[in-house]
Structures are given as structure tokens and as C-alpha cells.
């Protein structure tokens, strides 16, 4: 194809939002305060770490002084005793150095890990409570990158910030020691610093941009890879491998170039720093050396200076590195804070009431109006009641609001008008936990977890016996295929239960609802991917199970609908009819019309045209 050399006009890989990769300010007080809340339980350890860092840095500053002492008072003058004393002192100092370095790195490392895990736990736990409407809007991948990438860069931040303290102290320590040893020589040495700062003023903004670009290119490429992994079946199905690889290659190449540019910026400072080091040492040799020759300076002092100069630029260099870590960390911290600050709009009242097993299983909608966006209600003034022990079917075309009504029963969302009552109590007055236990749901899309079949069916009923699980599986006709699995109920299911057919997954999620053994059973097209025969068997079993329970059922198939005590017909979020099958037929309204015309909204009533 001639076109293949060009970029296909309608193809992209990966999705990426630039705004979230923005680097933050180096310091954001609000973020730091939030993060500090996680660090403060460990403040004793942090204090120990800081002390250890100070001691460690102190030993580093002291070592050249000891060497100076050894040279000037021992070696040059031939004082054996002074040399011995200096060496013993040296031994002591390096022992302290060893201890301090061990304590510092250990405490910092361990604490950073602890804080990291604490932050993650707080976020995860918060996400368990945030409102469903937030979760609807947010991609799982984005949340995962908060829980992993951002949390990790906080860890890096915590580690480097303690080390930065050490670096700053080291810098001041060295400067102070040099001035103390010899003011003139010290000032001369420090005089190269302004050059460095001047260079950095030019370098920093450009380098930062390059680092940002590299970081972003990396996220872009990673996002595209994640998409390829998740969507691999669709990609193969539609023969897109080659186009995608070409597009991905572009991103990988951008990433490569961005990193090469960043590396250039990172490295360009090295010869400058080294030249300045050389310059400073040359000063010391010429000026200091002349002073030694002129007997106005001891040689040991000169040696100590040379030692200091070699270490002088290390802290400056690593502070520069830490600067970009800090920036990244602030941006991450900001995003973590955002997650922690997501408002929990649906929460238990102070005096929330707990539904018990004895609470009756009635459901009532009183004038309920609800919309995901309040301006566009999907349910309008809906009123109906399901008495304890009754089974009610809701029918209606796709998008008429059936699933939304189910979600309200479980208080996934709060209504805008009217009220939803379960067991006679407004769902806003009862605890969410007891509400969840009072209602068992089969959602429209089956969802299974990694784990055994047994664990999946049992799910939240951790004390369910094997018998309970097997009975539920039998009721939905899943027992036979489960028994035929290599390890029966102990078979590990892969990601999302991928080794099962969709219908089988639907059966398992049905069985899970039965094990929950709740007063109210809510079924949302629970058998859409199951054939009618299997469904009929489930119906038979359900009839027994639902005897003294309340059922709310969304279905298309006539068999299911006709079994219900009552039928509610929903259209465009409004109830247009309700009654028993016979009543509705007799009424001669929409339901009857649809039914008689065999309108396939109840789709299995066949086209009779043939």
C-alpha cells in the first residue's frame, strides 16, 4: 500500500494528558504539611536520623583537620607521639562515622518505606469511601499511577531530603573549616563559587525544561505500552500490530531523544565544576604554597585545603540533583493530596441506623428524581414499592434507567429528590455497611477477582461453609462445570476470570449473590449471556430461594418477567405502567401492545413474521 509510508490519519496509541505531568514548585507548603502528617508518627526516628546525619557530616569535616594535625604536629616536626595521637583520633572518628552512617541510612531507609506504605494505605482506604460518581469518571490506570508512581517518588523525596540536610551542613562545615584554618586562603577559595552560581542561573531553567520533557516522554511511552497490554486482544483482532508498533516506535524515539537531551544538560555542568575545582586548587597551590614557602602557613593546612576543595563541590552537585527530585516530589505530593482530598459525598450519618437480619426486606421509591448530572435526570419522579417477599420485574429499553434505579437501592448515589427506603428506612439514615449486607446484587457486568472459584463465590461471607458455596453453585447450575475444572472449587481463576466463558462468569457472580444470603436480591440482567434453558433452571431454583426474600429483577426474557409478582415498565426514566402480567395485558397499554405485537423489547418473543 502506498499510503503505508505516511502516518495513518486516524491512529494513535496510548492516551496521555499533559497537564498531570507538570513539575511542581520546589516547595509547596500545603503539600509539605500534608506529607508531614504521615511523617510525624515517626518524628523520633526522623530526629535520630537528622542527628546521625549531622554527626556523619561532622566526621567528614573533621577528617582533613586530623590529617592536618598529624602532618603539622607529628610528621613534619618528627613528633611520634603527636602522630600516634592523631591516628588514634582518626580511628575514633571513623568508628563514629561508621555508626552514624549506619544509623542514618538505616533509619532514613526504613522510615521512608514505612511512610510510603502508610500513605498508600491511607489513599487506598480513602478510595474505598469516595463516591461512586468520582469512580465512574476516573480511569483505574490513573489511580494506579497515583498509588504507585507518585507514592514512590514521595519515598525518593523523603530519602533525599534528609540527605540534603547533610549536604547543606557539609557545605557550611567545609566553608567554616577553611575560614577557620586560614581566612585569606579560605576567602580566595570561596571566591570561585559566584562563578558557579552565575553559570547555574543560565543552566537551570533550560535543564529543568529538558528534564521535564524527558520525564513526560517516558510517561507517554509507558502509557502506550500499558494500552497495548490491556487491549492486546482487540489489537490482534483488528490487525493493528504494525501500525501500532510504528506509532509506538515514534514515541520511544521521542523518549530516547528527550533523554539524550536531558543527559546533555545534566552533564554540561561537570566540566565546569571540575574546571572550577582545578582553579580553586591552583589558587591554593600558588598562594598557599607561597605562604608555606614564606613560612606563614603550615604545610598541613595546605593539604587540608586541598582535601576540602575536592569535597567542596560534591554537596553542590548533589543538591542540584535533589532539586529536580524535589520538584517531581512536590508534583507527586500535590496529586496524592488531591486523591486524599476527594470529597466523600456519601457517608453515614452520626446516628446512622444498622439494618439487621430481622429488618424486613421491602424496597420503596418515593417520588425519586435522579441524574448523574442533576441537570439531566435519568429517573423522574419514580414511585413504587416492593413488599417483603415479593418479586418485581423492571422492564424497559436500554438506557431507560433500570440499572440506575438498582444503584440507588444500594445508595451508590444519592437522589436529588424524593427518597429511597429499604426495610422502611431511608437509605440515607442507615449505615452503608448494613445496607450492603441487607442487599445482594448481581451486576450487569460480571466481575471476578484473582483467586479460587471458592473464594470468588464466598467473597465477603468469609465464614461461608463449603456446603453453602456448593449449594449456591448448584442453584445457578454452575456446579457441574466447576466440578469439571482441574481443581474443582480450588481452581485458581486468572485475571478477571478470563479462563471461563462469559456465561460461566455470569453464573459465578450470581452464585456469589446467593451466598451473601441477604433479605433482598437485586438482579440486573443477570442472565443475559446465558441460554434460556440454563436460565429456566436458575428460575426454578430461584423461586425456592426467593420464597421469603424480596426480589428486584431486570430482565428481557419473558419467562423471567412472567414469574414476577408485578412488572414495572420504565421508559425514559419514568414509570409508564405497573401491575401483574395479566393485569397489564388486560390494561391493553404499552406492555400489552409490545407483547402482543411481539415487539422484541422483550426480545425472545419471536418475530412472527417468519
Amino acid at each position, binding site marked *: 500500500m502506498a499510503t503505508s509510508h505516511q502516518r495513518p490519519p486516524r491512529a494513535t496509541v496510548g492516551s496521555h494528558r499533559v497537564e498531570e505531568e507538570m513539575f511542581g514548585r520546589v516547595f509547596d507548603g500545603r503539600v509539605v504539611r500534608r506529607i508531614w502528617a504521615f511523617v510525624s508518627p515517626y518524628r523520633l526516628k526522623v530526629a535520630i536520623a537528622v542527628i546521625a546525619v549531622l554527626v556523619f557530616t561532622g566526621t567528614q569535616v573533621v577528617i582533613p583537620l586530623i590529617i592536618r594535625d598529624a602532618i603539622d604536629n607529628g610528621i613534619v616536626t618528627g613528633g611520634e607521639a603527636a602522630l600516634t595521637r592523631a591516628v588514634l583520633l582518626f580511628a575514633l572518628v571513623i568508628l563514629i562515622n561508621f555508626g552514624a552512617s549506619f544509623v542514618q541510612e538505616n533509619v532514613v531507609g*526504613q522510615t521512608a518505606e514505612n511512610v510510603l506504605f502508610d500513605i498508600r494505605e491511607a489513599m487506598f482506604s480513602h478510595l474505598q469511601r469516595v463516591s461512586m460518581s468520582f469512580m465512574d469518571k476516573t*480511569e*483505574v490506570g490513573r489511580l494506579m499511577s497515583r498509588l504507585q508512581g507518585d507514592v514512590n517518588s514521595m519515598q525518593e523525596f523523603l530519602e533525599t531530603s534528609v540527605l540534603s540536610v547533610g549536604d547543606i551542613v557539609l557545605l557550611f562545615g567545609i566553608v567554616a573549616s577553611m575560614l577557620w584554618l586560614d581566612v585569606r586562603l579560605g576567602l580566595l577559595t570561596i571566591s570561585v563559587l559566584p562563578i558557579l552560581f552565575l553559570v547555574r542561573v543560565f543552566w537551570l531553567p533550560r535543564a529543568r525544561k529538558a528534564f521535564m520533557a524527558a520525564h513526560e516522554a517516558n510517561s507517554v511511552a509507558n502509557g502506550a505500552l500499558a494500552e497495548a497490554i490491556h487491549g492486546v486482544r482487540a489489537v490482534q483482532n483488528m490487525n493493528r500490530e504494525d*501500525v501500532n508498533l510504528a506509532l509506538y516506535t515514534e514515541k520511544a524515539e521521542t523518549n530516547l531523544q528527550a533523554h539524550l537531551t536531558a543527559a546533555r544538560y545534566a552533564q554540561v555542568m561537570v566540566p565546569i565544576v571540575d574546571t572550577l575545582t582545578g582553579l580553586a586548587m591552583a589558587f591554593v*597551590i600558588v598562594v598557599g604554597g607561597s605562604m608555606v614557602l614564606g613560612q606563614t602557613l603550615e604545610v598541613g593546612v595546605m593539604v587540608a585545603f586541598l582535601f576540602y576543595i575536592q569535597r567542596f563541590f560534591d554537596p553542590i552537585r548533589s543538591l542540584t540533583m535533589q532539586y529536580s527530585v524535589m520538584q517531581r516530589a512536590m508534583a507527586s505530593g500535590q496529586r496524592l493530596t488531591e486523591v486524599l482530598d476527594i470529597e466523600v459525598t456519601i457517608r453515614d450519618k452520626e446516628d446512622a441506623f444498622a439494618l439487621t437480619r430481622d429488618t424486613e426486606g421491602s424496597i420503596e421509591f418515593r417520588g425519586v428524581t435522579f441524574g448523574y448530572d442533576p441537570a439531566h435526570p435519568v429517573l423522574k419522579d419514580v414511585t413504587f414499592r416492593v413488599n417483603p417477599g415479593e418479586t418485581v420485574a423492571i422492564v424497559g429499553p436500554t438506557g431507560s434507567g433500570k440499572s440506575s434505579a438498582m444503584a440507588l437501592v444500594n445508595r451508590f448515589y444519592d437522589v436529588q429528590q424524593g427518597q429511597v427506603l429499604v426495610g422502611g428506612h431511608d437509605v440515607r439514615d442507615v449505615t452503608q455497611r448494613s445496607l450492603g449486607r441487607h442487599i445482594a446484587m448481581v451486576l450487569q457486568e460480571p466481575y471476578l477477582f484473582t483467586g479460587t472459584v471458592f473464594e470468588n463465590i464466598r467473597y465477603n461471607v468469609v465464614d461461608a461453609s463449603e456446603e453453602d458455596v456448593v449449594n449456591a453453585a448448584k442453584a445457578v447450575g454452575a456446579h457441574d462445570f466447576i466440578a469439571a475444572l482441574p481443581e474443582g472449587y480450588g481452581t485458581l481463576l486468572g485475571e478477571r476470570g478470563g479462563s471461563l466463558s*462469559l456465561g460461566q462468569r455470569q453464573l459465578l457472580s450470581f452464585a456469589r449473590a446467593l451466598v451473601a444470603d441477604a433479605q433482598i436480591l437485586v438482579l440486573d440482567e443477570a442472565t443475559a449471556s446465558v441460554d434460556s434453558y440454563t436460565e429456566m433452571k436458575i428460575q426454578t431454583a430461584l423461586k425456592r430461594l426467593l420464597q421469603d426474600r424480596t426480589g428486584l429483577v431486570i430482565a428481557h426474557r419473558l419467562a423471567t418477567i412472567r414469574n414476577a409478582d408485578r412488572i414495572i415498565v420504565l421508559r425514559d426514566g419514568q414509570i409508564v405502567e405497573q401491575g401483574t402480567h395479566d393485569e397489564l395485558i388486560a390494561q391493553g397499554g404499552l406492555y400489552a401492545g409490545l407483547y402482543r405485537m411481539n415487539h422484541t423489547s422483550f426480545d425472545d418473543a419471536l418475530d412472527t413474521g417468519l
Partner: protein
Amino acid sequence: MTALSQQNSSPAGDRAAGPRSIRPHGSAGTLLRITRIAFQKPWWVAIAFASTLVAATLQLMIPIILGTAVDQTQDALAAVDGGRGALLKTAALLFVMAALRGVFTTLQNYYAEAVGHTVGYQLRRAYYAKVQELDFSFHDKVHSGDLITLGMLDLEGVRMFFSTGIVRLLLLSTLIGVGGYILIGTDPVLALAALSFVPFVGWRSSVTRLRLRATWLRLQERLSVLSRVMEENLAGIRVVRAFAAQSLEMEKFRTASLSALELARERVGIRVRNTSAMTFSFFAAMGLVLWIGGHKVIAGEISVGTLASFLTFMTILQMPVRQLGMLVNSFARASTCGSRLFDFLDFEVPIREVPGAPALVLSEGRLRFEDVSFTYPGTERPVLRDVSFEARRGETIGLVGPPGSGKSSLVHLIPRFYDVTGGRITIDGQDIRDISLRSLRQAVAVVQQDVFLFTTTLENNIAYANPWAREKQVERASESARLHDYILNLPGGYRTVVGERGVSLSGGQRQRVSIARTLMLDPSILVFDDSTTALDANTERSIRKSMRENAANRVTVIIAHRLSSLMDADRILVLDDGRIVEEGSHAELLALCGRYRALHDLQVGNDAPTGGTR
């Protein structure tokens, strides 16, 4: 498209690694292989290595020059002015050396990084290509989270090996080797004292490397479990909420989190003990130099300058020795991550085409299953047994059967998502295993039961299979899927971005996007795998009608539970436990009074006023 495919046919990583026969085993082999990939940029590697050697040597000059300078200050005989001149020369030399060292260090670092990023680039491409190439059964078994970790974290570990492993090792060995040589030439005893820390450090690092390597693997596993727990919780949040299972989920999270934390802390301990001990041994050697060297100066055996240069030499080593911990970590990480990554890249994909396979040649468009049996790889129970049927262009085949009877499995065999384990499938007499995969998949399209939408515009999603399509084509496909009007009503129209898994669309809309994008392939064999469950029947009927218009050019296979969807089928196959138990047209099957009839009666309802009500 051919140009692209040739260009991409062989993943770069494989090419780099050379022939399969010398496939490495164990960690040495892995590291060797990474090195070989790095050598794809021979000049860069050469510059990096050469600069490292030069930079290290220049750095070693500095202590010597400093020593000279110190001695010059001690030269009591020199006149103050003459001494100053000598000092000036030494200082100039030092300055030049330091500046040059800086330049070469920059070259060393830059080219080391550049080689590392090139390795990363090669591996990324190879990895991406491999992900796309691996068949369904591989992806069935491997959790997507683990693949993401492998492609990001492990790949990073391998990428960094050249700069943080190899080049650093070269630098350190040169410093110690050349430095040691110079020192021994100057004063053997003092040199031994100065280098006394080397054996200890070598021993510590190899021990630590092994321990870090072992714990790294275990940590990766635990972190995988943790991220799986989080990911599944968030993706399944509705189930979690519906069952009020938050505390159970927190329990799962804490268990996974604690076990990872424990190990992470253990690793900190290992690392820190190692670094501190190594630094200590280094300082101890320095103390030894001071002690022995000091006595030697006093005894007049060496000058103060020599002692100063020994001590300066040790300061130069201080940073690299502190970084030795990182070096060790880099080796440990690269060998662990590398062997995992290479195992993945070397995985032989069972489903691939025979070399030089010809493209599918379509003539009458006849699809044939001949005694097809199929068992999923790694399982024992056959899912399909002796399935035989035939369909010609223009025909529609219906498939019904209970969940797990093998309907989806059957249709997944046609585009070779899985390979048959017995019998064969032919299209116009050509065994599908003998023709090129691309041409096969171009001819066969499946509307999957689970819809995966890409996070991009509706337009791009629909044109996914043919991104060169013109706007008209896209619109026509979405019209056929009865999606066009809906899209036009959206504020963004075709430019509306749909979410990761199509969050903002309802189930029925997603299924329609999936149908539309499959139509873009204009396949000769079109399969609907139970892909209209969320559609209201009106829409479904309308879509079926538009399908019928094009049905003459293709074989259509429809899996459905609503028998109304199958009424147009020329033949309906009833599947049970992997076998075809009934076969015939709607009317024939009704007359048979078998399973199909039972399904039919159930759906219509025995007492319902079927048939005659018109």
C-alpha cells in the same frame, strides 16, 4: 502496510542478542547479553570506555601533582621566587588536568547514558512487538499488571546496567588498578596499606549481590500481588460496594502491603550494612596510610608530598567506593530483571506463520471445519470435539448452546487466536495454518463478547482496523451499526473521546462501537460473539437488517441466545459440551423437537400467544 511489516518483522533485541544457540543461561549470560545489545552502538561504547580510561587516568594525575606541589613548598633550598615559579607551573598543570578530566568525565557519562538509553529504546520496541505478537493463551495466563511491571521496571533495570554497572565498574577498576600500579611503584608497603580495603570490599559486594538478587525477585512478586489487589479492587469497585466488602478488601490490601513492606525493609538493612562496612574498611585503610606513611616521613623514607598524594588518592576513591553499593545493586538488578525480560522476549509464540507463508486466496469463500478438536493449552479437558461444518459465502451460521459449551472457543479458532489441537480449518481449501496470519486476520473479524475500547476519539476507535479510512467509510460503518445518529447528537460528535474501557458509554453503545469498528475490516468471514446482549431488540433488528444487505459477500457467524437473532441463519448449530448436537435451519430444528425446540418454547412461552397473533 508491507513496508511497515518488513521493517518491524524482527524485534531489535533479538537481533542484537544473536542466534538462539548461544542463548545465555544464568546471570553471567544475561549480563553478557545486555552488554552485547549495548555494543550495537560500537562507537558510543568505545567513546564511553576510552573516556572512562582517560578520565580515570587524569584523575590519578591529580594526587601526583598535588604531591609535587606539597614537596615544592618543602624545598627549603629553593629561593622564594624560584619556588614560586615552580608552584605556578604545577598549578597550571593541575588546572589543565582538572579541566580535561571534567571534559572526559562528561564524555564518559554522556555516552554511557546514551548507550543505556539506546539499549532501553531497543528493548522497549522489542518488548512492545512481543506483547503484540504473543497469542491469546499467553495473555490468558499472565496478569496484565505483571506484564506492565516487566516492561517498565525490569526493563529499566536492564537499561541502566551499562551506565551504572559496566562503566562504573571500569572506572573503579581503572582507578584501583592504575592507581595501585603507580602507588606500588612509589612505595610498595604504603601501597599495600592503601589498597588493603580492596579484598574486603570485593568479598562484601559479591555476597551482597547474591542476597540482593534473591530478595529483589521476591520483592517484585510481592509488589505484583499488592498492585493486583489494588487494581482489581478499583476496577471492581461496584462489586466491592454492592457487597459492603470494604473491610475484606482492606484486609487483603494490608496483608499484601505488610508482606511487601517487611521485605523492602529487609533489603534496606542489607544494603545499608554493606555500604557502611565498605566505607569503614576504606577509612580504616586511610588511617593505616596515615600511620605507616607518617612514620616513614619521620624516618625520612618518603617526602610529605608523597604521603599527601597517597592520602589524596584515597580521597579520590572515596566517592566511587561509596557508590560501590549502587554498583552492586545494579549488577544484582540487571541480572534478575534481565533474565526475566529475556525469558519473555525469547518466548516462542506457538501461533505464528510458517516462513514464507502465502497470503490467503479467496475464491468462493468457503469456510470448513473438519473434525476440529480443541483443548486450551495447559488444560486437559477438550473444549471442542470433532466439530465439522461448512459455510459458503453468503451464508449465515447460527451458534447456540449453554454457557461453556464452546461457542466462543469455536469462533476464536477461525482467526487463529488459538490453534486447533485436532482436525483442521480451511478457507477455500487452504489450511489456515499454512497462510499468512495477516491475510487471515484481514479476512476474518470477530466482534468480541467483551468490548475493549481505546482511550481516543470515537472516530479513531471506529477506524481502528483501518486508520487510513476516509470519513465517509467511518460514517458508513457507524451507520450500519446504528450509531451514527447517536454520535451526531454528542457535543463532540465523532471527536468525542471515550474512556479507558469506555466508561462514559452505556453497554449497548459500546457494543455498537465494537460492531462498527469490526465492519471497517470489511471481512469475508464476520463473527458476532454474543455481541448484542445489551442492545434493545429494535436496534438489534435494525442492525441485523443492515448486515443482511452485505451478507452476500461474506460468511456470517452469529452466536446468540435470543433465537430471534438467529432466525435468518441458513443453518443453526446447537453446541453442547463441545459437540454439535443438532444442526439445521430454524424450521428443521423446530420440527426435530430437540434441544432447540425446547429453547424456543421456553423463550416464546408455551402459553403465550405465539404465531398467529398478527
